[in-house]
């Protein structure tokens, strides 16, 4: 640091490097200073209006700000706003049956929009996001219903759950009998085989093979199958498997699993109504 300033009178700090590189004491530009002080004022005002400072060490709390604003409060206000809009529909829904809701254009439109979340939380895991079903789980968008596709049936299914039973026939029928029955089912004419009557299939599937909604037995005459063939499996093999191992038969470890849990305890009655309407409107409701 030179004692004699080689650049006198130019308002430098006296710090000089490399002969002539020096630090000046020029003030920052005016606009910069305005922005700087505006930021400081902003900061103070913010601290006054909003929560800002934590409490001193050893004590609890924080400065609350004069407006008393909190994130939670703002969030709750937002929720209340949405709830207020929904409340209008929800109170109407509470007093109506699922069938009434279905018949009301406005209410069922509201239900279809709002029950999407309920469906996603409770049903989509097995039945697919859009009710398209999954391996081993029923499709909800078609018109084939084991327990009936009327709104009341659907509501009941959700409430009490379902667990169909079909006994395993591996020990009852000879392989060629299984073959004959399976072929008749695949052809869509189960009653064409005399075995259908003789072996007692009619007890559950009915004289005409169209199933009974009260029992949840499958319609064997249509082109849809409750248990779709696995990858690489033929429809015939899949049908044979079902005949041999049954459904939910505790005596056969290879039996088909088909359990719909009951939601009567888990969901409120209004939620079940909404879900019933939602499922009915997926495309297959009757």
């Amino acid at each position: 640091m030179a004692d004699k300033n080689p650049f006198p009178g130019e308002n430098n700090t006296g710090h000089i490097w490399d002969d002539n590189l020096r630090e000046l004491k020029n003030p920052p530009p005016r606009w910069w200073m305005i922005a700087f002080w505006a930021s400081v004022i902003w900061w103070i005002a913010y601290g006054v209006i909003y929560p800002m400072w934590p409490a001193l060490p050893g004590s609890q709390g924080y400065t609350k700000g004069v407006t008393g604003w909190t994130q939670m409060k703002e969030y709750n206000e937002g929720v209340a706003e949405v709830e207020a809009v929904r409340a209008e529909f929800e109170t109407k829904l509470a007093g109506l049956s699922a069938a009434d809701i279905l018949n009301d254009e406005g209410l069922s439109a509201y239900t279809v929009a709002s029950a999407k979340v309920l469906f996603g939380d409770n049903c989509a895991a097995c039945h697919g996001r859009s009710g398209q079903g999954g391996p081993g789980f029923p499709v909800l968008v078609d018109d084939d219903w084991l327990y009936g596709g009327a709104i009341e049936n659907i509501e009941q299914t959700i409430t009490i759950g379902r667990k169909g039973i079909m006994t395993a026939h591996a020990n009852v029928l000879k392989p060629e009998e299984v073959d004959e029955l399976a072929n008749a089912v695949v052809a869509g004419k189960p009653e064409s085989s005399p075995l259908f009557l003789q072996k007692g299939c009619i007890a559950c599937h009915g004289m005409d093979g169209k199933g009974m909604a009260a029992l949840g037995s499958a319609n064997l005459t249509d082109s849809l199958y409750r248990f779709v063939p696995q990858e690489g499996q033929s429809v015939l093999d899949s049908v044979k498997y079902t005949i041999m191992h049954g459904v939910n038969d505790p005596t056969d470890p290879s039996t088909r699993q088909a359990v719909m849990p009951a939601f009567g305890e888990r969901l409120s009655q209004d939620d079940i109504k909404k879900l019933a309407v939602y499922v009915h409107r997926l495309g297959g409701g009757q």
Partner: protein
Amino acid sequence: MSDNQKSQRDAAVEALYEEAGHWHINTGDETIHAKRVGGKWRTLKWLTSSLWLIYFLGPYLRWGDRQAVLFDIPNRQFHLFGVTILPQDFWMLSLLLLFFAILLAVVTAVAGRVWCGFFCFQTVWTDVYTWIEEKLEGAPAKRQKLDKAPLSFEKIRTKGVKHLLWLIIAFITGIGFITWFVDAQQFWIDLLSFNLGTTALITLALFTVGTYVLAGFLREQACFWLCPYARIQAVMVDNSTAVPTYDFHRGEPRGRVKKGQNEDDRTTGDCVDCNQCVAVCPTGVDIRHGQQEGCIMCALCIDACDIVMEKVGRPTGLIRYESLDTLNGKEDRPLLKRPRVWIYTAVLALSLVGIAYGLSTLDAIEIKVIHDRQPLFVVQSDGSIQNKYTVKILNKMTEDMDVAITASGLEGLQVIGADKPITSQHGKVTPKTIFVRVPPANIGGDSMPILFRAVGTDKNGQPFVSERQSVFMGPG
């Protein structure tokens, strides 16, 4: 020239030269106090400026029970007299913008910065502001003196009134803007009862401050440093463009008129170097330096120069609308031989045709069909294939309409969920879920075209039709 004329002339130029000392070229460090002189261009400028009265008065035009022109952003509707335009028809706006952009280009190519000099809000508002300034504070020299004068009661009073008037104009400008976007009558009711909404208040404040600062203080500096349009002038102007030009062949070498000199003896050009062209220039440029970015081509210097030329008994038009080509003795290219004119005209015509087509084919209803993708199709118990669609009906009319939906294109198809006409709300999109079922025998592939048709009927029984192509998916 007689002696009497000569002495008259000498007296006139003496006064001019006295004034000339005050003028110098604008570099932005000093407020421009332009002198005001009359003339035909000045008159024309007032006329073109007065077009802005539409901006203030337009919103009070009524059409039936509503404002004739209203850009209703909250309700997403644009009302243009009898026509209501919804966001779905907004593509026309891009054509409109294209039209104006090209109009700007074609005008600039033919006659320079006509927009800047005669129409631009920056020019017009600055003009009005400085007019007020002159009325209150006097001629430019007096204003400069007042600016430099120490603070006094008189100075505060004069300046205070000026700023108050400026602010009032700025405030009215803000009101003018807002009333294009909200109902003007309702706006005044809200304003006078202090019930304006936040958006309106903020807009009003921004426009008041913006107008006040831009027209009161920034003035020509906005044209120099802020305006992007001023920056792209050079590419639109060519040698055939007629712009206010100083005829240097005639004017140079410029020289002051000497007292008692005979007009026939002079060795100088026609320019008497009185600096009047600089004095009247609102942007403070010197036209005699040739074309320059600071010149907004307002032609006020033409008026000033003509007045001087008449005083000194020389032909007028030393500064005039002239192209560089003709100034340099080349033949002027006729408009029709200039490719720019052709290209610009073609684009102009195209955009106009597009807008006309759009306005004449504004549909009353419009449907969109969204095919449900999960699942793509559903097999029914009888083997038929079902597809799910969301049909969105946009009703652009001012009343609700019953709309019947049908589909065609596949043999034996059956539409489910559209047996009753759907009530579509006016000015809104009404969605409706419908299903289409086709027997397995008629499925000819994994994706087949299907045509949806919506027929709406208004209360007079007039049908409105909208069709939309979609696909029907099957197992193939």
